[in-house]
């Protein structure tokens, strides 16, 4: 009557909860996952190869298209990696504006994560609230650089333009409103019984496992490791900012939710400090028209909303394009821990776990 054999099913690549085109080969014993093998590469465009054949200025455009929910943070990593390769000193005002916009991007990315994660689990309402604030942030990006999603916000050596008139007022209006908005999301989810039931104790990943698997970002911090590249290896203007690294020790999906919400509060603090302490001066360093590199290699890590985003660049003497470009995408490494996290859990919890990793297939497949 009852069959006891294991069943193998495909989740994705055309599954709405896999956040793009992720395919999971699941082996099920009834409702319990016994084995999980992620299959990726459906969105592979060869960004690394393309950038090796483009100049340093053109390469930045491709970084927008990797993690499209945090294009500004990707741009910052690229600009800083190239600046490190050439030894460029960036003006302080440009550093502050970069930091501010990157933190806005962190907010936008966490908002879209919260929306889709809650939507996957079944809380539809949060989506409508978070997208309201994300819209305001995208308006800020639009006012700054004209684009909303694929921003190409920065230039190598600084910024193309200073802040537009009225930008400061827009930011202050947003900052006055935003803490209440976080309260609103919390009122919808934090004490919600269904939300707690679906997230507490789900997708656990201990600190030792997380470090062994190279997992970074909120997933690592929710396991109790206070590792944030903004503090550990400060870049842009983060060394001058006063903020905390929120951590939890439960290492489950609920803890990651709390860490990300706390991070959003810290981001608003950083934005406030950037705005208040914005130094005067130029926003662009003096650079030659054509950048020709020397033999050098850099690995520049930045704290992307998803984790450690590292750009590895090798320069060839007299060349205008990188000899080798490699992206250490946070999603790629974090997704590797998924089989470990879902083993022994229910199929429905796989969806919650994918959501909590905050994967974007654009950067995983590159």
């Amino acid at each position, binding site marked *: 009557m009852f069959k006891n054999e294991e069943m193998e099913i495909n989740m994705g690549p055309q599954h709405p909860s896999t956040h793009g085109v992720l395919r999971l080969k699941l082996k099920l014993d009834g409702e319990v996952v016994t084995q999980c093998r992620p299959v990726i*590469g459906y969105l592979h465009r060869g960004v*690394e190869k393309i950038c*090796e054949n483009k100049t340093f200025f053109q390469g930045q455009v491709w970084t927008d298209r990797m993690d499209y929910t945090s294009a500004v943070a990707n741009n910052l990593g690229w600009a800083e990696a190239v600046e490190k390769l050439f030894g460029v000193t960036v003006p302080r005002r440009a550093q502050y504006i970069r930091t501010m916009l990157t933190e806005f991007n962190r907010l936008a990315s966490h908002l879209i994560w919260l929306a889709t994660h809650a939507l996957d689990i079944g809380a539809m309402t949060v989506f409508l609230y978070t997208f309201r604030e994300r819209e305001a942030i995208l308006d800020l990006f639009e006012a700054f650089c004209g684009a909303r999603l694929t921003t190409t916000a920065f230039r190598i050596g600084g910024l193309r333009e200073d802040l537009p008139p009225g930008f400061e007022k827009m930011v202050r209006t947003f900052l006055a409103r935003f803490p209440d908005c976080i309260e609103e999301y919390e009122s919808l989810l934090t004490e919600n019984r269904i939300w707690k039931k679906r997230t507490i104790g789900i997708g656990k990943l201990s600190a030792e496992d997380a*470090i062994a698997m190279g997992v970074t970002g909120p997933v690592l911090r929710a396991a109790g490791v206070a*590792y944030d590249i903004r503090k550990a290896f400060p870049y842009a203007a983060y060394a001058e900012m006063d903020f905390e690294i929120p951590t939890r020790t439960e290492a489950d999906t609920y803890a990651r939710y709390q860490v990300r919400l706390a991070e959003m509060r810290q981001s608003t603090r950083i934005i406030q400090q950037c705005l208040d302490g914005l130094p005067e001066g130029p926003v662009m*360093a003096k650079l030659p028209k054509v950048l020709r590199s020397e033999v050098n*290699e850099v690995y520049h890590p930045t704290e992307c909303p998803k984790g450690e985003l590292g750009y590895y660049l090798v320069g060839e*003497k007299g060349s205008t394009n990188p000899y*080798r470009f490699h992206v*250490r995408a946070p999603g790629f490494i974090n997704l590797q821990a998924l089989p470990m996290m879902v083993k022994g859990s229910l199929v429905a919890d796989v969806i919650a776990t994918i959501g909590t990793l905050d994967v974007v297939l654009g950067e995983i497949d590159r």
Partner: protein
Amino acid sequence: MANDESPYVYDLAGAPNHQVVMPKTVPLPSLKTYLEEQAAAVAADEAKWAKAQADFEAAKAKAEADGKDAPKPPVRAVPRPDTNDMKFPAPAPATDPDLLYLQSVLGAKVEEAFQQAGELTCQVDKSAILEILTLCRDDRALGYEMLADETATHYPAAKDFAFAVVYHLTSIRRCKRLRLRILVPEGFEPESAVAVYPTANWLEREIWDMLGIRFQNHPDMTRILCPEDWEGHPLRKEYPTLGLGQRDIDFREDRSGVLMRIAMEKAGNLGINIKPPKAE
């Protein structure tokens, strides 16, 4: 069609997009090469100046003998002052305690250690990489718990190696980073780092997929981003950016079939897989 019998064979030579410019230099960052190049540049400059002076002396002697006016003495060129906010981070000898410690512990296994742009680089013996990674992770003085990144670079112009595999290690406790590098010839299979750092699993699969370096004792040495049956390894320098797998499809209305025929001809030139429609 390049090959009438099997339309699924790429005509690589016939395709205009397959012009790949191979690199002529080996941009492997190294303190030794840098110092050699600097010394060579200084020597070349000195030789040029000595030649200019000798020429001047000869011309002067000749002018005196002929009873003409003496020629102008040569002027040594002064480099133009650089007003850019840019200073090339030149490689410097190892002074960081971690690099010195590695040198003292590993001895001859460290081929080169230097610092550049604030980053520590340690080039080590390729056959001892697993042992060195274990040391970096477990030694109390080093304590690099996390492998942040592993990747490789193709150097087709180099003589005694083809790839440089780099490991970027992170110490969360000490807030430090270290780059280990091994130089690998074509066909050599380095020891897999999965036993020490499980992160390396997908990273090494990606290296195999993109550059074609296989790793020994890797639990799952399969392609990861490209399909299993993909031809070639895309991040090698001989791999073209355009052409492979590219299709030329025209969606305009084509009642007489002329456009299709042109497309077929073009496809033949490019060596692209479009099958001719079968006559009913």
